[in-house]
């Protein structure tokens, strides 16, 4: 004999699941709702604006492809695109390479305590106005500035470094270096120490340990650092204008240029959408690659 089944309290189960749903929704919903309201809607508006027209210098709702036709018909559009892409990609690679030895030192050489101190000081400049820092670089890079004076003292010609790729790179590095340092250091610090020891135990030389154990193990984090440096450099226009002297015609500069033709925001919107699309593709491919399983 068994206990008679106690009738299921349906209301009880429903109450419980309602409570759980509400509790879950409390955590799941806030960010998406905020983003939908204050980001997705403006973004949708941006898409809409790309189909609007400009009448008497006034942005007017419309359904025309003229902005798309105009922008896609620009003969220098793709040159600008690839220049932008190439510049930010090379900056991202250079910044990652530049940051790596320092990240390595923070992850492997420094004690956790020293690492914390170094990271603290690496992040501190991030809080100081980016505009101010870019403006300050001019003093170093200009003719008669710090760097050219030093070069001159050693018998060089002391040319200004402004309006060169080097200046642009300095600007990108100013923006992205702290982020890359943090991501790389975390990635390296999380590499399993026993794997490294095992490799050393099996006779791997330092170089082999670096290239065959550490780099592959830290790949996702290192790639994310690269991606962030790329994202930041790609959308950057202050250092392109101030340090690059407007000589490097990148897409963000094209965006501001297009607006100057009498409120041509629809065209600027088209270029922006192209930028967003290319960034998304890049980010997607990079993330796939970063987390790709071997074999």
């Amino acid at each position: 004999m068994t206990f008679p089944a106690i009738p299921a309290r349906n209301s009880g189960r429903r109450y419980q699941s309602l409570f759980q749903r509400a509790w879950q929704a409390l955590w799941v919903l806030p960010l998406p709702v905020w983003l939908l309201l204050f980001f997705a809607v403006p973004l949708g508006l941006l898409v809409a604006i790309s189909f609007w027209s400009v009448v008497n210098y006034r942005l007017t709702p419309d359904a025309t492809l003229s902005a798309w036709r105009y922008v896609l018909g620009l003969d220098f559009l793709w040159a600008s695109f690839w220049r932008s892409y190439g510049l930010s990609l090379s900056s991202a690679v250079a910044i990652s390479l530049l940051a790596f030895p320092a990240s390595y030192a923070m992850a492997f050489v420094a004690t956790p305590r020293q690492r914390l101190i170094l990271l603290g000081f690496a992040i501190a400049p991030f809080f100081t106005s980016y505009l101010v820092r870019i403006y300050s670089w001019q003093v170093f890079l200009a003719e008669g500035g710090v760097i050219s004076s030093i070069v001159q003292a050693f018998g060089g010609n002391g040319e200004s470094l402004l309006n060169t790729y080097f200046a642009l790179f300095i600007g990108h590095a100013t923006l992205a270096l702290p982020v890359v340092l943090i991501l790389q250091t975390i990635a390296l610090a999380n590499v399993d120490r026993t794997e490294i020891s095992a490799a050393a135990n099996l006779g791997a030389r330092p170089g082999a340990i670096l290239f065959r154990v550490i780099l592959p193990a830290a790949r996702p984090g290192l790639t994310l650092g690269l991606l962030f440096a790329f994202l930041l450099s790609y959308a950057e226009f202050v250092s392109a204008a101030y340090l690059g002297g407007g000589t490097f015609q990148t897409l963000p500069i094209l965006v501001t240029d297009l607006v100057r033709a009498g409120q041509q925001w629809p065209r600027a919107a088209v270029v922006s959408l192209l930028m967003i699309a290319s960034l998304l593709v890049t980010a997607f491919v990079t993330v796939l690659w970063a987390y790709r399983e071997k074999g």
Partner: protein
Amino acid sequence: MTHSIITSRRRLIKGGLAAAAVLASPTVLRAQGQRELSMLTWAGHADPDVIGAFEEEHNVRIRAKEYVGGDQMLAQIAQSPAGTYDVVLADAEYVVQLQQAGFIEPLAAEDYPFDDFFPEFQNFRGHWFDGEPYAVFLRFGFLGLSHNRAAMSEAEARSYRSMWDSQHEGRIGHFDWHLPNLGALSLLNGNASPFDLDEQHWTELTDTMMSLRPQVRGFYDYGGMLSALRSGEVAAIPGIGDWITGVLARDGADVTTTIPEEGGLQWTESLSIGAGSKNQDLARTFIQYMMSPEGQVKTATLKAYPAMIPTKAGWARLNDEQPGEAQRQNMVLNGPNALDEIRAGRIRLRELPVQQSLETWNDAWTRYKNA
């Protein structure tokens, strides 16, 4: 500008206390029954030196939205609710665009001292529509060839042609805006009306521009031009004027602006009342203040960038109070002055292209930069 340490320290402490007071009681400050006047303006015009006296006299608080480009200004006013901005300060070219888009109110001619204007400025082009003024001419300046004297002499600067000299290769800078650059080169091409070009002259102009491209160092904004010209990194910049070199000269840099033989351009900044403003009376009072001799002197000597002024009374007051500056800006009352240049026909107004669309000019400029 160097102060003795003691006075500056005292001022610093005073400043610190003031800072603490403001930070501690921001709401108190706003609750003194003051009226507020909002202004959309180029940077520097809301400097306390300029508007402080007006604010005090009328117990009004001027809140300025400073913009860094006419197109941003238009976008800001277009996307903000009507009546957001009571006073709008804009370049004359943009007055036309503001009026066409319906962003500014018509003014009453009798409210402003147009009679006191030098005759050249009385019925200023692009400010009057159907006999009604939409903007009051506040200040102006000349655009020519600005140069670092160490790199390019005044004699050289008498022609825009010098920019093509091999010794200035990679040493020519540009202000990154198509209108003044194309205008200056149009003058070089000998176009009497530099912005009113038929197809053939327009093609010639773009050809001239393209031939200059190898000489170009960079395309700058305000701050960039200051440092580039000051350090001699660029020898010369066409289509700008005393609004850059005057600032640098005041600080002791060896730079100046020369109006070449081929002629120069005139830039103009004007004041308007924003469409739908709820403080039109106050806005009118403010514009009247800026047009008064006192306001005129203040705007002529604006810290951000100096300029010439259109009223006779303003000239008189400037000569009275700051003869040196009047001299420097060539606004002397007795004897040859800046107006002679206009009267001699060497100065043309910077304006919107007549036969081509604005976007055609902008495209040409973007193409030039990308070349």
